């Protein structure tokens, strides 16, 4: 078991509403990632699930039972903190054993469970040391050990890797994915790092300003973002947005006028909106990695102000007339281009996203299964 449901959950601090009605189902054994910019309410949401914050309104349901007023330990939940929160005066062994000591478990059971947890996390040789003598990655593993020793059904992680350096973070990412497979428990993971979200999650919840912007599998969010927020948040560098005019709508998609070029974007426009859409402004979205040098469906001439050569990629940024945001493009390999010189770039209509005036996407007519990894059965 380990099924978690949020039903219209609201959290206010004084007059300030942080979480504004979130409903969500997390399936048993799922790796769910909450992602969003800072201040979007993702950590507050996690702390409410944990039982550290009071829920202002709505229900938190675990395995069919409303747990709003239960203490964390009665919810069958364990949490790993961003700051590790290890007990500095206790050895690694005692740190991991702490939840069992609270339960007054017998000594030999404690030893068995702590050693099992230490074996999973490769901490066997560190059991006698104090947290102060450990590296960041080891401390994080001790914090995880303290969580798994109680065998909870649901694990909560509050930005657990944000204090580690880049190389260690990549290692720990693999470690956590492995741990999820090994334990098969439900995991809810909060991060602001979209790489962590994309690589580890079964499903991602993108939060924006206290609301859920979109819930879906990582590649679904990438290929079919439901709004400009998700489109801009998932993917790095950000998607480019350009205002265009819609000139015609048909079953095959919407025809737009992009700098005098007519493009047909394969999107689903509901039949009742079609006539109203013609002649209005819409937003065209194109990801930087879908832009190429030379001719294509839509061609534009730009003058990049900055070029970044990364070896495996070449990034360029160009100012567009009347736009505050830079137009960004990513080319594979090392491209011999220079800044402050006009170049011709293009993109294909099939890679485009289309959003209405309110920023909501028209669903792209692409077969998602062709672009995503088949779901495991």
């Amino acid at each position, binding site marked *: 078991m380990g099924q978690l449901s949020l039903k219209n959950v609201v959290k206010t601090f004084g007059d300030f509403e942080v979480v504004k009605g979130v409903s969500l189902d997390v399936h048993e054994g799922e790796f769910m990632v909450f992602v969003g910019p800072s201040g979007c309410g993702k950590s507050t949401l996690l702390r409410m699930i944990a039982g*550290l914050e009071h829920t202002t309104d709505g229900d938190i349901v675990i395995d069919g039972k409303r747990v709003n007023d239960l203490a964390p330990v009665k919810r069958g939940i364990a949490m790993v903190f961003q700051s590790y*929160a290890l007990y500095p005066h206790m050895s690694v062994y005692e740190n991991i054993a702490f939840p069992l000591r609270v339960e007054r478990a017998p000594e030999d059971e404690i030893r068995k469970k702590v050693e099992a947890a230490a074996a999973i996390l490769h901490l066997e040789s560190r059991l006698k040391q104090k947290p102060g003598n450990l590296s960041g990655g080891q*401390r994080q593993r001790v914090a995880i050990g303290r969580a798994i020793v109680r065998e909870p059904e649901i694990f909560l992680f509050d930005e657990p890797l944000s204090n580690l350096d880049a190389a260690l973070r990549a290692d720990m990412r693999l470690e956590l994915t492995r741990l999820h497979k090994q334990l098969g428990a439900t995991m809810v993971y909060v991060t602001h790092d979209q790489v962590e979200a994309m690589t580890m999650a079964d499903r991602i919840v993108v939060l924006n300003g206290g609301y859920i912007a979109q819930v879906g599998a990582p590649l679904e969010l990438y290929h079919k973002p439901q709004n400009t927020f998700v489109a801009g948040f998932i993917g790095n560098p950000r998607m480019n947005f350009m205002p265009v005019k819609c000139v015609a709508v048909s079953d095959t998609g919407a025809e737009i006028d992009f700098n005098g070029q007519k493009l047909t974007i394969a999107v689903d426009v509901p039949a009742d909106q079609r006539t109203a859409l013609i002649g209005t402004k819409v937003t065209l979205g194109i990801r930087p990695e879908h832009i190429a040098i030379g001719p294509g469906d839509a061609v534009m001439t730009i003058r990049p102000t900055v070029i970044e050569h990364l070896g495996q990629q070449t990034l360029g940024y160009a100012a567009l007339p009347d736009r505050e945001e830079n137009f960004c493009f990513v080319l594979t390999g090392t491209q011999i281009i220079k800044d402050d010189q006009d170049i011709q770039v293009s993109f294909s209509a099939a890679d485009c996203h289309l959003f209405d005036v309110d920023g909501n996407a028209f669903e792209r007519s692409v077969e998602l299964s062709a672009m995503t990894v088949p779901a495991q059965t």
Partner: protein
Amino acid sequence: MALKLFKKDQTRAMIDRYSWAELVGIYVGIALFLFFMLAPFIEGFLVSLKPLAQLFSSPYSFLPENGSFEAYRTMWVSVPSFGRYIFNSLLISTIATIIVLILVVPAAYAFARFKFKGMAMVLAAFLAVSMFSGAVLLIPLFRLMRTLGLLNTYFAMIVPGAAFLIPSAIWLLRTYMMRIPIELNEAAYMDGASQFYTFRRVILPIARPGIIVVAIMTFIGAYAQQFIFALTFNSKTEFMPLPVGLFAYFGKQEVIWNELMAASFVGIAPAMVIIFFLQRYLVGGLTAGAIKQ
């Protein structure tokens, strides 16, 4: 180039490098300061070594001629209950310290961790109380003690002393406890620990250096301020603490200065030993590794 006594310039951090003149200035300053601090102690010790007659000789000589530790022996003879005074002093200070710690540690934790109505006011009130010295309140306290029939007891010397030490101890320990990361409480709560279990198993061990500082401060404070309470609330010889007991060396005709000084040094010694003992447990950086700073 600085003196060879000091670390070579090359191995010093840039911020720690001083010119020759600066170094001289620093050490002269320290020496001057230390001299003013220590002069009474040095003089007191020298007096304790001199025979009584030499103290009033003219011209006065600072260094004792044929000095001896004789006064350290005769002091026990001329005031036989001197040992009892030392014991009283230690007893009063120790019990006051224990009472203060028992009350202050939970109180400081509550002020550091919990938010409740009127907290700021109570803290301000504590600060205000500690602005009054015991001397200001001596007369009301005396009337109170007399009404309760507590004059001439250890209680009368211990409890007011402890009460005046509590406010500053709370402020000191509260500041220390506020530095213990709140995540430790949250982690313990997630692990199912009760408030009290968390306090006992997590907070107390981490706060130990702070508690020891408070213990030392309180002990010294209780040792120093017992004079005024003992003088007013007690007239029984057998309950006298050391500072009042020293008056026994003031004879009808003359003051036995050398024995008085010897007795002062002997009297301070046990307190010094206790403080040095407690100091060994002052280990910094106990929260290292708790959280990522």
